[in-house]
C-alpha cells in the first residue's frame, strides 16, 4: 500500500499565511466576533476580468491551490478533492435574496451557478484542465477530513499518484447574522473575545482556504506523511480518550509517542470539555496547541490546523501564539489533530515526519 505525503501547502486565512515563514506576523483579534481573510494579490493568479465574476471562495481556493502546487513543485495533479461546509454562501445568499425580493422574476444565473457546492473544485479543475477524479464533501466540521480520507484512499489504492485536497469556506453577511441569532457565533459587543477562558457559548467565526498537494512519494518538498484519519459522528465527552487511544493503537502508537496535540478550541463553553479533559488528563505531558483564535471557527477550519501541523513538522518550531500549555519536546515528529463541533462530527488526524 502506497504511503501519502504532504508535499505542498497553500493557506489563505484570517492571518497572513502566505509570503510569510510561519505565523510570525499572526495577531490575535479580541475585538471581533467574525474575522475576515487577509486577501492575497488575486491578479497574480487570476485575470482581473475572470476575478470579478468569481465568488470569494473560488478565488481563495484557486490561490491556495496554486500556492500548494508551486510549493510541491508540481504542474498537474491526478485528482481534486474539496471540503466545504457551506460552499460559496455569498452567492447562495444573493440568489435567494433576489428570488424573495423580486418574487421569482428578473433573475440571472451567475449566482445560482456559483452557489453549487462543488464550484470551487470544479473551477480549479477547469483552470488546470484536470479531467481526473473530482469530489466535494459537505459535512459540517468533517468536510475537510472526508476529503483527506478520500485522498489518502486514492493514493493507497493507486488510483491517483497526486491529489490536490483542500478545505474552503467563506463568510456571508446575512448568514453570519443568522449564526449570531442562532448562537453559533458569539453575540456582538461582548469584547474581549477570548478563546481559552471563555465563559460564553458560540464561537468567533472565520473563513479561509487551505489546500495541499498529497503525493505517493517522499521528496525534497515533503512536510510530513499522513498516517491516518478517523471520522466519528457521535461521541460522548467521556468516550474521547478511549477513542483516541484505540485510534493510536491501530497505528501502533501510544500517547507518549505524540509530540504535539492540536485541538479545535473555539471558545464555546458548552463543548469545551471535549478538549479540556484531554489537556488536563491524558495529554497533560504533551505540548497542546490551538488555532481557532487565529483563523476563527468555520466548517473547514481544521484544514488550517492541518496546515499548521505540517508546518511544525517541517520547521520543527512551535510559535508561542498557538501554545495552550508550556510543555515542550525536543523534536516534533508526530502530531495528532482532534476537532469536533457541538459534540458531533469528531475527527482524528495523524501526521508524522
Amino acid at each position: 500500500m502506497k504511503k501519502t505525503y504532504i508535499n505542498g501547502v497553500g493557506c489563505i486565512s484570517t492571518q497572513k499565511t502566505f509570503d510569510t515563514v510561519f505565523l510570525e506576523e499572526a495577531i490575535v483579534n479580541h475585538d471581533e466576533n467574525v474575522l475576515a481573510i487577509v486577501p492575497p494579490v488575486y491578479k497574480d493568479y487570476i485575470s482581473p476580468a475572470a476575478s470579478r465574476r468569481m465568488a470569494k471562495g473560488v478565488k481563495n481556493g484557486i490561490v491556495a491551490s496554486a500556492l500548494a502546487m508551486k510549493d510541491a513543485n508540481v504542474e498537474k495533479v491526478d485528482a481534486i478533492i474539496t471540503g466545504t461546509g457551506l460552499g460559496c454562501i455569498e452567492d447562495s445568499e444573493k440568489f435567494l435574496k433576489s428570488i424573495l425580493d423580486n418574487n421569482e422574476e428578473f433573475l440571472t444565473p451567475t449566482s445560482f451557478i456559483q452557489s453549487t457546492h462543488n464550484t470551487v473544485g470544479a473551477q480549479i479543475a477547469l483552470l488546470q484542465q484536470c479531467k481526473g477524479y473530482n469530489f466535494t464533501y459537505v459535512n459540517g466540521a468533517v468536510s475537510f477530513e472526508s476529503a483527506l480520507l478520500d485522498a489518502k484512499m486514492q493514493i493507497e489504492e493507486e488510483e491517483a499518484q497526486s491529489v490536490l485536497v483542500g478545505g474552503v469556506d467563506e463568510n456571508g453577511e446575512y448568514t453570519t447574522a443568522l449564526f449570531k441569532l442562532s448562537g453559533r457565533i458569539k453575540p456582538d459587543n461582548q469584547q474581549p473575545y477570548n478563546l481559552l477562558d471563555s465563559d460564553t457559548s458560540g464561537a468567533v467565526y472565520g473563513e479561509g482556504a487551505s489546500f495541499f498537494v498529497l503525493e505517493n512519494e517522499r521528496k525534497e518538498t515533503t512536510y510530513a506523511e499522513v498516517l491516518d484519519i478517523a471520522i466519528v459522528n457521535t461521541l460522548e465527552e467521556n468516550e474521547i480518550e478511549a477513542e483516541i487511544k484505540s485510534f493510536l493503537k491501530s497505528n501502533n502508537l501510544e500517547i507518549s509517542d505524540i509530540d504535539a496535540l492540536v485541538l479545535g478550541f473555539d471558545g464555546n463553553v458548552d463543548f469545551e470539555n471535549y478538549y479540556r479533559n484531554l489537556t488536563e488528563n491524558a495529554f497533560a505531558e504533551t505540548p497542546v496547541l490551538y488555532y481557532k483564535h487565529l483563523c476563527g471557527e468555520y466548517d473547514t477550519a481544521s484544514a488550517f490546523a492541518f496546515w499548521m501541523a505540517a508546518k511544525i513538522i517541517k520547521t520543527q518550531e512551535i510559535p508561542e501564539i498557538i501554545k495552550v500549555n508550556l510543555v515542550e519536546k525536543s523534536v516534533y515528529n508526530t502530531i495528532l489533530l482532534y476537532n469536533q463541533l457541538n459534540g458531533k462530527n469528531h475527527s482524528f488526524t495523524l501526521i508524522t515526519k
Partner: protein
Amino acid sequence: MEGVAITGMGIISSIGNSVGENYISLIENKIGISRITNISTVHADVIKVGEIKKTNEELIAELGLGNDNNFSRTAMIGTLAAKQAVENAGITSINEFRTGLISATSVGGMDMTERHYYDYFKHPELVKYIACHDGGDVAEKIAEELGLKGIVTTISTACSSAANAIMLGARLIKTGKLDRVIVGGADGLAKFTINGFKTLMILSDDFNKPFDNERKGLNLGEAAAYLVLESDEIVEKQNKKVLARVSGYGNANDAFHQTASSENGDGAYLAMKKAFEVSGLKPSQIDYINVHGTATPNNDLSEGRAIKRIYQDEKVPDFSSTKPFTGHTLAAAAAIEAVYSVLAIQNNVVYPNLNFENQMEEFDLTPQTTLKNKNIEHVLSNSFGFGGNCSTLIFSKS
C-alpha cells in the same frame, strides 16, 4: 464474487413511497410528473415537476417527529428512504459492525431557509431551522434517526452526488475500512433550484423527452433513495440475500464549463471508461444502460456522443432514461436510478424511455421505448452534474 454486495434498498419518489411501488410504476407507465402543489411559486402554471405528493406535515407524522423538530423536507424524505433500506437489509443493531453513512444532497435544507429567510429575526420559534440549511444536516438527521454513530459524511457534486456517494461507499467496503455502509442521496424540491434551473433556461414546460430530437429540457423532481452495501464477510456470516453488486465505478471531470457539457462528452466518456476498468467488464457485456438523459439539448447530445465513443463500431445496448417518470431529482438521481438498476437486474427488464418520438439528428441512437423483458446481467448507470462532474456506476447480478 466481483463487486460489493447490495443487501438493502429504500426509496421515496414521485412514483412511489417504497421499492415495490416504484417498480410497479416503472413497468406500468405510471409517471410522477405533475403540477407543483407543495411549494407556492409563480412558475406553478408553467413548469411540471416530479413531486412527492405528501405535505411536510404528513411526512412529520409518518416519521413520528416531535413539534420541536427542525427537519428540512430533504431530511424527512432521506430518513424515510434510509430507514426502509436498513430494514430491507435486515439490520437490527446498526452499530454492531463498523457501519457508515455516505449521503448526498445539493439543496440540503434550502427549502426551510427560503421559507423563513426574512422571518428568523421576527419569529424566535423559527430559529431552530437555521442549522438545517447545512448540506451535512441531512446526513446528521438520518444518522440520528438510525442511531448510527460511526463515520457520516456527505457528498455534493450537483447531479452526480449520489453516484459518488455509492462509489465512496463501495471503495470503503472494498478497502476494508468499513463492514457496512448506507449510501444514497436526497433532494427535496425548492424554489431555489426551480428558479436556478429556470434562469439557465433548461426547464421544459412539457413532459421531458430524453434523447428526442425535439426535447426542450428537464422536469425537476424530488426523491430520496439509499442502498445498504455490506462486506462479503458479513454476507457470508449472516447468510444475507444479495440483491445485486456494485461492480464498477468511475468519476471524471469534463473540465469544459461550469454548467454545460462538452460536445463530445469527454468527462462522460472517461467516467464510463474508468467504470469498465474497475469492473473488468467489456462494453459489450452491458445489457442495459440507464442513461443520465435529462432531456436538456446539451446533456443528451454530450452523453450520446460519449456512449458512441465507448461503443465505437459495436452495437449500443438497450438504453433508456427513467427521468420521464420521476423528473430530474438532482443529487438523489443516481441513488433512485441505482435502485431502478438493481430492480432491472432482479426482474430482467428494460424500462421504457417514455415520450420519445424522433431520433436525434446528430446520431443513430434510439432508446428502448417500451418495456422489454430479457435477461439482465449488467446495468450501467450514468449521472452527470454541474462543474463537469461525471460519474458512472455498473451494477451486476450476484
